[in-house]
């Protein structure tokens, strides 16, 4: 399993680490049992993401996808931010190993939850459809063949 240079760069120097005090929206996804937890805080102005910070407990890919998603989202309108797909995140990082694709889901989910939180807090219509992916900790290895000898 090899990470791209870009993944390693974001992992080593993650952008926008931290917590925005008095954030307009907060998204927390994942759980420590699965080993991945991400918290995104955003401040919103004119329906744009004005500032964004994250904290992540997780693997290299979890940290790198968190970092890049904050970079991508910063300055975007809320609609644009919510539209970021896991594949865009992976692409932006120069690809992710197949076993790590779920991490990009964690990042986009975290962002969506934060935006949703902002919308709900401000009495607006929440995001249409499910906010979190069904199973961000989907294990790509589970589809393995029955061993027979």
């Amino acid at each position, binding site marked *: *399993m090899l990470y791209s240079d870009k993944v390693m760069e974001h992992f080593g120097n993650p952008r926008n*680490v931290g917590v925005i005090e008095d954030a307009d929206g907060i998204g927390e996804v994942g759980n*420590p049992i699965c080993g991945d*937890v991400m918290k995104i805080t955003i401040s919103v102005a004119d329906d744009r993401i004005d500032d964004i910070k994250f904290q992540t407990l997780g693997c290299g890919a979890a940290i790198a996808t968190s970092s890049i998603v904050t970079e991508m989202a910063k300055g975007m309108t809320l609609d644009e931010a919510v539209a970021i797909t896991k594949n865009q995140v992976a692409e932006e990082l120069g690809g992710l190993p197949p076993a*790590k694709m779920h991490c990009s889901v964690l990042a986009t989910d975290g962002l969506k939850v934060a935006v949703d939180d902002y919308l709900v807090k401000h009495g607006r219509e929440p995001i249409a459809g499910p906010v979190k992916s069904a199973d961000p900790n989907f294990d790509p290895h589970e589809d393995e063949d029955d*061993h027979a000898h």
Partner: protein
Amino acid sequence: MDRTVYLDYAATTPTDQRVVDAMLPFFTERFGNANSLYSLGRDAARALEDARERVASSIGAAAPDEIVFTAGGTESDNTAIIGLATAGGRAAGHVVVSAFEHHAVLEPAWWLGKHGFEVTEVQPRTDGTVHPDDLAAALRDDTVLVSVMHGNNEIGTLQPIAELAAAAHARGALFHTDAAQTLGKVDLGVAALGVDAASFSGHKIYGPKGTGVLYLKRGTRLAPYLIGGGQESKRRSGTQNVAGNVGFATALEIMDAERPTEAPRLTALRDRLVEGLLGRIEHARLNAADAPERLPHIANFVIPGVEGEAMLLHLDAAGIAVSTGSACSSGSLKPSHVLLAIGCPVEFAHGSLRVSLGRFTTAEDVDYLVDMLVPVAERLRSMNPLYEKTVAALVGHAG
């Protein structure tokens, strides 16, 4: 990065230069097929039998033909578990393995479980040891095979194999042990252990990757796993890797020769590491800390609030090679089954750090690891949204 500090000797070792030198003639000059009748073949056969004798003598086998050369620990384990259980065409029975075996044992046990056999997993206790009483309780009249590893590859605890084997034998079951991690590192006599079969791997003892040995006590029936030309007295088919097997034997002899000084040296280094790391990383814990016996070269820690892979990558950036969980299933999201088996909470199991020392490890290496780990743990904990909660829980627990 200036410094390179390799501290993952339990994952693999460099092949010793003396081992490489011993292997070299068998690539280009003494390259015969050990099954050929002519002089080049006989020369290869002699080298192979010589290697077999050296391995047999090192592990205290009764005869060289108790040694079967394989292509690694995994193949030895697969062959032992499936080959002993199904010997003579047996298609059903009860098999017992410990819950913290290497996957090279667990997977074939599970395979048996899907193919006519019943499998029981004995849980080790929190001291990282499988207790003979627990094994005895799991045994049944129809138990045909028990497999408990000699030294655990993640936490380094040694199992009371002689007692476990005696318990198995008392109920008429065969006993196999995966000794990939103990070979060369502790005094290992198969007779003293009382096992019917044992698995070994070359690349854990400064021998080449892709080499292994299955010890098979005389008279033990085995259904061979790799089948074909009937090499290794029909117990393992495939043209023998003469260079590799000579390398294995040579590596083992070096381990034996150096153990009297190497084992205490590694033990002291390990103790220095444990003391240094626990002293400087808040809330860190040594896994299976109260094990009655442990390998000299492995120490496994939990660093609460830190995720293993991220820790590894930061240490890697400082030139340090260590591991989290077991090395063979990288990319896996599952926390170590070994740590879970000894009762480590799953959220901490994600933050495990296995340090394993070896022939080239110095006190400076160990100190360097601790020095580098301090800021890494701090940094990752500061990025962890749940860190305060975790500490609160820990302190609560500890209280």
